[in-house]
């Protein structure tokens, strides 16, 4: 099974794994290579190719050069917008999900299964369906066209995932721990803060990774509920890719894609190890 021997079968395993890994990396490789080719070069050859002249300028253009209408600042300002939405929404949805998951799994209260069932159903509700209702809600609470509105949307919608995964993680925590703390005189919050939270890093990493990438990559709400200079980075990316009134800017577009994906890629690279570990305890039951 999990043995380290040197048999031909192991060589075969390595071969297969490396082959699949290569296939998995191919799209990334293509984007990286294209980010270093000029638009003209790409237009002449295919989308797959080795750069003839390293077009580092693509990155400059992508980062701070290209124009979205009258703003010629590349994707830089949009990155900031995305961060302003993604970071708080990730933190809020994770924290609230952790508390909700904790309450549902370890405290049991009247109606908890119902509430929990409905909340998890949220994973399945198509988001196209929610666009207009959100419009009405944001209007009524005066948050339309604000980053705060987006933070609210992503926090509430994110609760479905974070609650589900935190609950599944917390049900594995022995109830005795909570009971001991109650006997010790600790209340709901103190138990959460002092006992549950210190045990949570693996699952929090899973939810943070998940929430961060989903919110960062979201487009529909991002463009609908923000204006002008507030738009998220996905809007800038789309401006580059869906520009009909221009010849394709594949080089710059690729560079922008890479830059825009850096935060999420980094978060996966750094947190990937814990991702599997966190799932080991959750999601499974």
């Amino acid at each position, binding site marked *: 099974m999990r043995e380290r021997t040197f048999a031909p079968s192991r060589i075969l395993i390595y071969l297969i794994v490396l082959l699949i890994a290569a296939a998995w990396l191919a799209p990334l490789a293509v984007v990286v290579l294209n980010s270093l080719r000029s638009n003209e070069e790409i237009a002449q050859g295919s989308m797959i190719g080795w750069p003839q002249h390293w077009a580092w300028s693509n990155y400059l253009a992508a980062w701070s050069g290209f124009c979205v209408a009258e703003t010629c600042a590349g994707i830089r300002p949009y990155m900031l917008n995305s961060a302003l939405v993604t970071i708080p929404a990730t933190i809020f949805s994770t924290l609230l999900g952790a508390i909700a998951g904790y309450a549902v799994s370890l405290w049991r209260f009247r109606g908890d299964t119902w509430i929990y069932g409905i909340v998890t159903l949220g994973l399945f509700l198509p988001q196209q369906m929610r666009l207009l209702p959100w419009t009405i809600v944001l209007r009524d609470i005066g948050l339309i066209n604000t980053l705060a509105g987006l933070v609210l949307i992503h926090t509430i919608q994110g609760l479905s995932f974070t609650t589900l995964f935190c609950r599944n993680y917390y049900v594995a925590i*022995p109830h*005795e*721990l909570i*009971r*001991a*703390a*109650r*006997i*010790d*005189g*600790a*209340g709901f919050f*103190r138990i959460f803060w*002092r*006992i549950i939270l*210190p*045990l949570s890093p693996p699952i929090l990493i899973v939810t943070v990774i998940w929430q961060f990438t989903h919110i960062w990559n979201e487009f529909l709400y991002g463009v609908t509920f923000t204006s002008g200079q507030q738009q998220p980075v996905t809007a800038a990316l789309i401006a580059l890719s869906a520009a009909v009134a221009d010849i394709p800017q594949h080089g710059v577009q690729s560079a922008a894609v890479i830059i825009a994906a850096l935060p999420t890629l980094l978060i996966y690279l750094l947190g990937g190890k814990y991702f599997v570990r966190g799932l080991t305890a959750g999601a499974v039951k």
Partner: protein
Amino acid sequence: MAALSIRTLSKRYANLEVLKGIDLDIESGEFTVLVGPSGCGKSTLLNIVAGLDHPSAGTVEIGGRVVNDVPPKDRDIAMVFQSYALYPSMTVRQNITFGMECRHVPKAEQDSAVANVAKLLQIEALLGRKPSQLSGGQRQRVAMGRALVRDPLLFLFDEPLSNLDAKLRVEMRMEIKRLHQRIGATIIYVTHDQIEAMTMATRIAVMHRGVVQQFADPDTVYRYPANLFVARFMGSPPMNTMPARLEADAGGPVVVIGAGRPDEVRLRLQGYDSAAPYLGREVVFGIRPECIAEGNRVFSGGAPIVVHAPVEMVEPTGAETIVLLRLGGESALARITPDIRPPPGTAAPFALDTRRICLFDPETERLIA
């Protein structure tokens, strides 16, 4: 004054009735041991007393006040959980002080309390460690420390020594007993260990299927088990029980095992007057393994009855020898001195201490005498 009164307490989970009308009165300063087979409701009872679970019916009184609606932290209880339930992310010291922290005890007071308890439990050197860095026995002591640092009305211990090896168990047992004697605390203690139950309790409550079968001091429980369940549950190896007839004879009542067989065993009884109504009827005869000894054993107070019985199996345990023998065709275990090992397949003489046998009604399974 009763420190704890439980009245017609019952608890049901969905379609499972876990506790069925429990009544218990525990005096202040008593050391009550709760025993019973797995799943009989011991932990459930403890949890209800602690306020961690709600009864379906009945009341719990602590110190004369009904506490059904009092949250756990206001019941003034300390509890040690079977699983230790140490807070994994806290150090030993923090584990112990957490309760005081919750109660806003001043820092200086916390420190001196920890110092006292750590000294008592010999865990001074461990105060800075996390639970994961402790051995089983050390964890156990920390869990204890968390309870002992307080001065509650009631201690609840749920199988607190179950995970220790034999040596450490003996040590801890002594320590708890000493503690009880010193501070005179009221304690309810769950265990599945016979020796613990017998040695620590002022009274033992034997539970089975959500009902208290017997609540009495250890000697009574051991010597006069209220019914067959208690008889067979207490003691290891447990009491030998077998069908028998009670016959009247010139000299008084006689228990006949394997009546009519060539190897029939007849035991004359003395002082079992309450068995009179059963004369001439079937009974269940019970005798503890230690009441069957090697043939030359002298039991205090009278010459024993000696029978020759075939030996089926012999188990020397070091401190004694367990022998599986046949009494009137029925299997029985005997505990004899370690030096004697009768060869299986032969017959050997065994001394029976008939002053300490039990008789049960085969229908009701209750103790007759």
